């Protein structure tokens, strides 16, 4: 049978019923009364006396109010109206207990807000594609020899790869180094990206002004062209809209500006690729097959051809690697291969683990919050038991009571979610302001529609979760017993349930605290690490170098300054983010196989570097000014490399094959150098890991266009900035200076990731602990209030107050201990996930367990102590009169 009412007619009726309620009610009343009147008339006509007729008519129709209620329940919009009624009722209930409402909403707001914030990161970083055209086809390529599969390409390799690939429609390379800021005005060093001409179109839809590089810029006699970042265009050229085509000063020459990038453009490369997110100037470099053994420096990305797959590309790359191996001059590269990763996946490699762990952490906090609110709702439910019982006795259906409870929960969650969006927004900005290094190479983090849907969804799920227990309790409502008990709850079942919730909270808080303990220990360990040099009392700055003579002059002049103990320079400061420089090295007599097994950082230095920075020379001697291209080529290596190459021999006097460039910038050649010293390893890349060993070469053998100076000073607060600038200017007007900062700043920056992790963990676990405390305190105070009379009787019968206190404390701890046991088991699952973030501390560290156990116990006792003290102070006489 078709009973489908027409929707439009239903909607109209629903609106009328809801909006013109008075009118509708009035009509209903008149109509039902008319019915009774008519029935009465009918009976009078049949001979009944009027009073009797009226009475029976009323009786037979089943009561005017009941008929009207039956109509109300069935008419269009009735469900909506009931919801609105529940909502109004819920509002009134919350207003009646503002403390409960505030606590619950705040708990939810913090719990959901933290989830919203972390989800925004997960969404932007893990779920949303990179902000690049065809982002899903972008692949990052490394070369390697099986020992280290994250090496850049040489020009030779890129050239031959491009020649042969069919799976990639574009393969492009980038190398970021330092260079002068283009244009007239003060010389300043900025990040300059050397890219192949096809690089930018892969990662940027269109320039803000002008064009990208094109094949014409690769021609041998093409004019010098550069593309500016938006920031440089604004800062240096005053947002000059006619900049395109202008010839500006750049390096030792002039270059034409052909494009300006959009303001939002950033390079989102993996953390360890040495490609910073924001180069200031881009110049185009050609790619050629000129040197089969040339230096590997290009970070390469490729765009898969439409219809290709990563697997096809990997197979092809293996083939190409074999073909390149067979080329002339590549005889020692048997293990040479290419390694391919999707740019997106590779991009978030480091941050993914941190994010997912954070996500786990905030989820735990929210769960604890849920348990708390469930407990609060249960306690409230018990306070309102009499009211509920009376309503049920008066005919309110169970489903209606449940619906009302759910409406109340939903209202709480909705209010919490609204506050959560604000908290989430603030948290995102706080996290971005803290800006730990591993969060720098991230796309923009925003609160988009997906995040808001997520927030709404967890608010809904949360409200269902925390109303679960009260709903079950409501279903079990026993009218007769409750009415007889005058609304006082009895029996252990309910308390038992609350204690399960408290145990769960303790378990979750315990796990979070354990993780925090481990991360904080890691941070402390990292703070106390020896980086291989002495950071205090040293000033550094970076400078463009026209040649050896001014460099030498500057070292000499700076050393003469008062308060300066010694001065030296190096191509790469430790823990700096400058474009890195490394290559393969081998000892004399190494077999072809061995020749490409050891990779080392290549560092160009001035004499006195080790004593100035505070590195330890273990063996041999430092460079002198006589160590140049005209004499025996020499090198100093670190202990790590010494051990790798000559584990059983004295490295001093041994010969080492390295690439240097005595003929000038970037004119690489392979030479034999004699090892004259061994120095302790310096942590150049991270404080915690030895990434590569180091080789030091004197500047005349490896000239670089950019060097960093280090000045060792007598006191910490020597303010040298102005003097240094003056000295530099007096030596040459052509040496732009940048990043003048204490050496310790670089170390602080390297601590930031760990500091951030431990800070965030501390914040989350403090929240968790606080919530768990509130839980213990709340449940226990409630239980004390419930047992006032019992305690009064005990005291009246002569029980000692201290015993009463012990009893309550024992009660509280009886819930904490199972929680600790559960937390311990849970931690066995969770802490191994942290292993990669830890340093110098084992996930299962017994000391950490002991510490956290003590913390949780102390705090639990504190939370239980307040209600216990109240119990102890109960006056027997008052207690007996209680209720």
């Amino acid at each position, binding site marked *: *049978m078709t009973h489908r009412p*027409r929707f*439009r007619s239903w909607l109209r009726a629903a609106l009328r019923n809801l909006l013109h309620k008075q009118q509708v009610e009035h009509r*209903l009343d008149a109509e039902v009364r008319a019915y009774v009147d*008519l029935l009465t008339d009918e009976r009078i006509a049949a001979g009944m006396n009027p009073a009797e007729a009226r009475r029976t008519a009323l009786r037979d129709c089943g009561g005017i109010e009941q008929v009207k209620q*039956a*109509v109300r329940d*069935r*008419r269009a919009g009735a469900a909506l109206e009931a919801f609105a009624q529940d909502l109004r009722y819920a509002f009134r209930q919350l207003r009646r207990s503002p403390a409960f409402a505030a606590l619950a909403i705040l708990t939810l707001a913090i719990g959901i807000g933290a989830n919203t914030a972390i989800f925004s990161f997960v969404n932007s970083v893990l779920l949303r594609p990179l902000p690049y055209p065809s982002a899903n086809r972008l692949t990052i390529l490394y070369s390697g020899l099986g020992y280290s599969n994250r090496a850049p390409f040489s020009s030779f390799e890129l050239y031959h790869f491009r020649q042969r690939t069919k799976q990639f429609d574009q393969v492009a390379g980038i190398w970021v180094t330092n260079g002068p800021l283009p244009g007239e005005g003060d010389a300043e060093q900025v990040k300059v990206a050397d890219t192949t001409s096809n690089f930018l179109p892969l990662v940027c839809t269109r320039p803000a002004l002008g064009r990208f590089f094109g094949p014409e810029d690769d021609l041998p006699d093409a004019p010098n062209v550069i593309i500016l970042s938006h920031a440089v265009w604004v800062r240096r050229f005053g947002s000059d809209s006619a900049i395109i085509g202008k010839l500006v000063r750049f390096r030792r020459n002039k270059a034409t500006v052909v494009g300006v990038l959009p303001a939002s453009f950033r390079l989102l490369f993996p953390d360890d690729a040495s490609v910073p997110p924001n180069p200031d100037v881009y110049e185009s470099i050609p790619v050629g097959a000129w040197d089969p053994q040339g230096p590997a420096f290009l970070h390469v990305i490729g765009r898969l051809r439409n219809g290709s797959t990563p697997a096809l590309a990997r197979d092809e790359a293996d083939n190409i690697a074999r073909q390149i191996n067979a080329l002339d001059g590549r005889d020692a590269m048997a293990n040479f291969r290419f390694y391919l990763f999707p740019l997106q996946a590779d991009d978030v490699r480091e941050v993914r683990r941190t994010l997912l762990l954070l996500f786990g952490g905030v989820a735990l906090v929210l769960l604890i919050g849920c348990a708390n609110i469930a407990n609060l709702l249960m306690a409230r439910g018990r306070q309102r038991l009499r009211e509920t019982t009376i309503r049920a006795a008066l005919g309110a259906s169970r489903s209606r009571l449940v619906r009302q409870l759910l409406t109340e929960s939903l209202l709480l969650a909705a209010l919490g979610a609204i506050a959560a969006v604000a908290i989430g927004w603030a948290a995102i900005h706080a996290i971005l302001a803290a800006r730990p290094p591993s969060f720098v190479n991230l796309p923009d983090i925003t609160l988009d529609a997906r995040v808001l849907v997520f927030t709404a969804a967890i608010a809904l799920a949360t409200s269902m979760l925390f109303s679960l227990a009260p709903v079950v309790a409501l279903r079990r409502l026993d009218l007769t017993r409750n009415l007889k008990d005058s609304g006082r709850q009895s029996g252990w079942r309910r308390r038992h349930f609350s204690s399960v919730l408290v145990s769960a909270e303790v378990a979750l808080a315990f796990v979070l605290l354990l993780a925090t303990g481990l991360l904080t220990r890691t941070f402390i360990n990292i703070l106390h690490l020896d980086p291989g040099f002495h950071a205090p009392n040293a000033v550094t700055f970076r400078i463009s170098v026209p040649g050896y003579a001014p460099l030498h002059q500057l070292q000499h002049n700076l050393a003469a300054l008062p308060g300066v103990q010694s001065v030296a320079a190096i191509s790469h400061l430790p823990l700096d983010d400058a474009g890195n420089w490394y290559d393969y090295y081998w000892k004399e007599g190494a077999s072809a196989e061995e020749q490409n097994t050891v990779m080392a950082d290549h560092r160009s230095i001035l004499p006195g570097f080790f004593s100035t920075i505070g590195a330890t020379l273990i063996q041999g001697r430092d460079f002198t000014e006589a160590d140049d291209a005209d004499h025996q080529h020499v090198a100093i290596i670190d202990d790590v490399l010494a051990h790798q190459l000559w584990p059983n021999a004295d490295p001093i006097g041994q010969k080492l094959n390295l690439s240097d460039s005595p003929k000038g910038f970037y004119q690489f050649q392979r030479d034999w150098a004699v090892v004259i010293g061994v120095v302790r390893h310096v942590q150049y890349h991270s404080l915690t890991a030895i990434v590569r060993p180091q080789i030091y070469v004197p500047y005349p053998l490896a000239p670089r266009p950019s060097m960093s100076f280090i000045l060792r000073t007598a006191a910490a607060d020597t303010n040298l900035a102005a003097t240094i600038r003056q000295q530099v200017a007096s030596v040459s007007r052509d040496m732009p200076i940048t990043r003048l900062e204490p050496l310790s700043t670089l170390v602080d920056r390297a601590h930031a990731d760990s500091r951030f992790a431990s800070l965030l963990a501390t914040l989350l676990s403090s929240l968790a602990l606080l919530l768990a405390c509130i839980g213990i305190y709340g449940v226990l105070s409630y239980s004390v209030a419930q047992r006032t009379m019992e305690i009064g009787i005990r005291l009246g019968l002569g029980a000692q107050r201290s015993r009463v206190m012990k009893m309550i404390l024992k009660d509280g701890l009886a819930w904490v201990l199972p929680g600790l046991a559960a937390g311990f088991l849970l931690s066995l699952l969770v802490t191994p996930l942290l292993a990669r973030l830890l340093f110098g501390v084992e996930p299962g560290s017994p000391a950490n367990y002991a510490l956290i156990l003590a913390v949780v116990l102390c705090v639990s006792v504190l939370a239980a102590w307040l209600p216990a003290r109240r119990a102890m102070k109960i006056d027997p006489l008052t207690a007996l009169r209680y209720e």
Partner: protein
Amino acid sequence: MQSQTNLLQGTLDLLILKALGAGELHGLGISRRIEQITHGTFLVKPGSLFPALHRMEDAGWLASDWGESENNRRARFYRLTKAGRRQLGAETEQWTKVALAMANALKAT
């Protein structure tokens, strides 16, 4: 609704539509009319009648207006709308089919 036989789901709607097929009636009139056409089998009480009337009006099958009863009392009179008449046709056809099928089924040996 009180009845000697339990009403099948939806029967009340059809009976109301049928009762109003001949012309407009007020609440008690509909009750009496149903009693009459079912030979006293169904006695519809106001607790069922009014919810059904309001629901059917909300659905657009019925329309109502105030009017005078035969003994000069103000009463709400219901009548079929066009949609209501269509619904009566459709439900009658459906019901006839079901009733016939049920009768045949019960006769079968």
